[in-house]
């Protein structure tokens, strides 16, 4: 394996990556050099072994110990060559969780597979544990056996994406019912491909089915697949969620960057429908476009603050602001379309988009911590206002009201 040095110059690093790529990746055919068609598993194995897939990780675990600026250099080169499998230290949430918090044995057993094709999904939310993730009621009961025994899991999870593809689920399950809710949860890497795991797609109001419900009935997970401590799952979850937010935030600032110079879609829509002269609509369009523009300016400032100080409280505002933006844009689009808003389908693509966007906006305002939860977070963590009173914080979970 090549140099690990943090002192390696950016030029040297770029040259090294390009050399390796030239030797191993066929940019024209978009596959491993020397073969005709991409074998993803084989390619991922090669990339992982090169250290370029998780460059910030330790060399003991497929990484190179690079800093994030160096990782960005590698990522940009791989991106330019459309190489799959890059930046898994940022985007492969399952692998990141195991790498950061899993035991040595667990890393040895799972990590390479998780980097080379064993996709994972999230099994956090439940019908009765939405905003209140610590309210999970999926139970995991220990039974004796070799290698520390195993847990028998029964319960229901919701809002899982990629469930069908996933080899593992990052499972939050209750292992102790007699302590307050945060203290009785464990975090498992749960094998998805087994009897007792039923996956049903959720029909969404957008017409999509990107999410699933997962019905788990006496399914098994080895005790050694617990991440962190037994009953210490809440802490693991917090770390996992922090990564998730970081990734989503980075995604947000990156996506924002692109939209600046083009004519905003609402302006195009109004032009297409001959409404750009309507003074009432012009005000509404301008304001809707401005909200997105202003949020982009906030996120740009956030990025500058992160570069300067390593963090930015502005980051936390983006998701809440996005709700106003998305619901607002869809509303103005509807006003541009007028009675055509009633229509839908392929014959009326602008209407179909607008109607889809109107429904999809709830994905941001409800999913991943609703607007109300975001406002709690902002007022408590940024403004330092008192936390909500939690009546169930200290009572045994058995006694907590649910429904």
């Amino acid at each position: 394996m090549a140099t690990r040095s943090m002192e390696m110059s950016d030029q040297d690093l770029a040259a090294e990556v390009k050399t390796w790529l030239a030797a191993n990746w066929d940019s024209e055919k978009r596959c491993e050099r020397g073969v005709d068609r991409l074998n993803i598993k084989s390619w991922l194995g090669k990339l992982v072994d090169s250290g370029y897939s998780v460059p910030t990780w330790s060399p003991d675990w497929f990484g190179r110990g690079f800093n994030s600026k160096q990782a960005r250099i590698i990522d940009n080169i791989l991106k330019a060559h459309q190489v799959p499998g890059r930046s898994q230290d940022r985007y492969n949430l399952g692998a990141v969780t195991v790498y950061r918090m899993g035991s040595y044995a667990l890393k040895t057993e799972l990590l390479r597979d998780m980097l080379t094709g064993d996709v994972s999904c999230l099994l956090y939310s439940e019908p009765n544990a939405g905003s209140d993730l610590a309210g999970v009621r999926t139970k995991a009961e220990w039974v004796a056996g070799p290698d520390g025994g195993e847990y028998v899991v029964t319960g229901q999870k919701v809002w899982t994406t990629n469930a069908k593809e996933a080899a593992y689920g990052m499972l939050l399950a209750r292992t102790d019912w007699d302590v307050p809710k945060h203290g009785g949860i464990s975090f498992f890497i749960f094998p998805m491909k087994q009897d007792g795991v039923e996956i049903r797609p959720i029909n969404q109001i957008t017409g999509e089915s990107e999410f699933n419900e997962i019905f788990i009935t006496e399914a098994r997970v080895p005790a050694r697949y617990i991440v962190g401590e037994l009953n210490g799952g809440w802490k693991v979850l917090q770390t996992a969620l922090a990564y998730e937010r970081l990734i989503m935030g980075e995604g947000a600032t990156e996506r924002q960057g692109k939209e600046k110079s083009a004519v905003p879609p609402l302006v195009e829509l109004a032009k297409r429908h001959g409404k750009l002269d309507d003074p009432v609509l012009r005000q509404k369009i301008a304001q809707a476009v401005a909200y997105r523009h202003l949020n982009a300016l906030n996120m740009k400032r956030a990025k500058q603050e992160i570069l300067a100080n390593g963090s930015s409280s502005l980051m936390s505002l983006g998701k809440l602001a996005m709700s106003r933006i998305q619901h607002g844009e869809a509303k103005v689009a509807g006003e541009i379309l007028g009675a055509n808003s009633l229509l839908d389908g392929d014959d009326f693509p602008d209407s179909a988009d607008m109607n889809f966007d109107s429904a999809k906006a709830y994905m941001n305002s409800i999913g991943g911590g609703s607007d109300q939860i975001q406002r709690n977070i902002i007022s408590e963590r940024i403004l330092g206002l008192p936390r909500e009173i939690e009546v169930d914080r200290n009572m045994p979970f058995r006694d907590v009201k649910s429904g």
Partner: protein
Amino acid sequence: MSDISIEEQTAMRDSFARLLAERGDETAVRQAMVTPLGYDPQLWQDMAEMGLLGLIIDPEFGGIGGDAVLLETLMEVAGAHLLCSPFISTSVIAARVIAACSDEEQKAEMLTAIGDGREIIAIAATGEQGAWTPGGISVTATSDENGCKLDGVSSFVMHAEGASRVLVFANNNGVTGAYILDPAASGIAIEKLKTNDPTLRLSKITFSNASAEHLPGVDETAIGTAMDLARVALAGEHAGGVKRIFDITVEYLRTRHQFGRQIGSYQSLKHIAADMLIEVETAASAAAAAAQAIAADTEDAQTLINLAAFACADAYRDVTAQAIQLHGGIAYTWEHPAHLYWRRARTGLWLFGSSDYHREQYLTQLEAA
């Protein structure tokens, strides 16, 4: 004013509510909305038997002779249950337009058939702008010794599916009038339009030298009156719908627990609910006031109709939007009823004129006051 007693009106309202609870609940709505017809013919027949289809038809023609107040009240019931039916098309717009017809024979035959449930009448009232104003009509009628012919396009035609006749508003030498024809007649091409609200059936009809019967005596004023009555019926539907989705939401706030508390104990949700209640009650007041003004033929009737049209539609839109938000993930699923109300509300924003249009009209009325 109707001379039906308050007791009778209340009884009608209650039996309609019972009927819909039994045969028009959410399951029934979901079944009906995926059929090509878009409504349940059996339920339509039940409504006929209760006399509802002749609600505003004169007793002389077998109707009940109810006024706008009774209509609005019953539409609240319909709205609460998301009733899918050609009621507004057939029993409000067509019934009121035909009542203005000066050919007594034509009138008697058609009104009786409407009340009996034998006629479903589609309404072709506007062109592709969807303006529902006289200026928005883009069908032309020409008449000679052989009768009338229609040409042009009408869009947003309600309930062409299963319709036995189509009522068309058309311009004949600059005079707006009403025409009626068989949807299967030659020279008429019906194209179904896909809608965002699965309980709504809309079509686009192209007329090419299609023979139609003229309804003598129906002028622009009569058409305007019928459309205004439809607006108040729709406002009533909104008022009923917004109340129901609000009740569903408050019930959820009471029963759903997170963090060991009813979510309705969280102040931010309580406050949103309080604001929603103002909208809910306002919709009820606005729809009722417009209906009363029509029934009593007061001077401010037109003002109140326009007011109800935008106030109820906007209230329904805002409350259903919040209802989904307050329910959280569960209301993001197709199986939960919230989005059905939300879609219906979004339909109401455009049918028979946009909120901005009605706000503009409302102000024009006030300037003249």
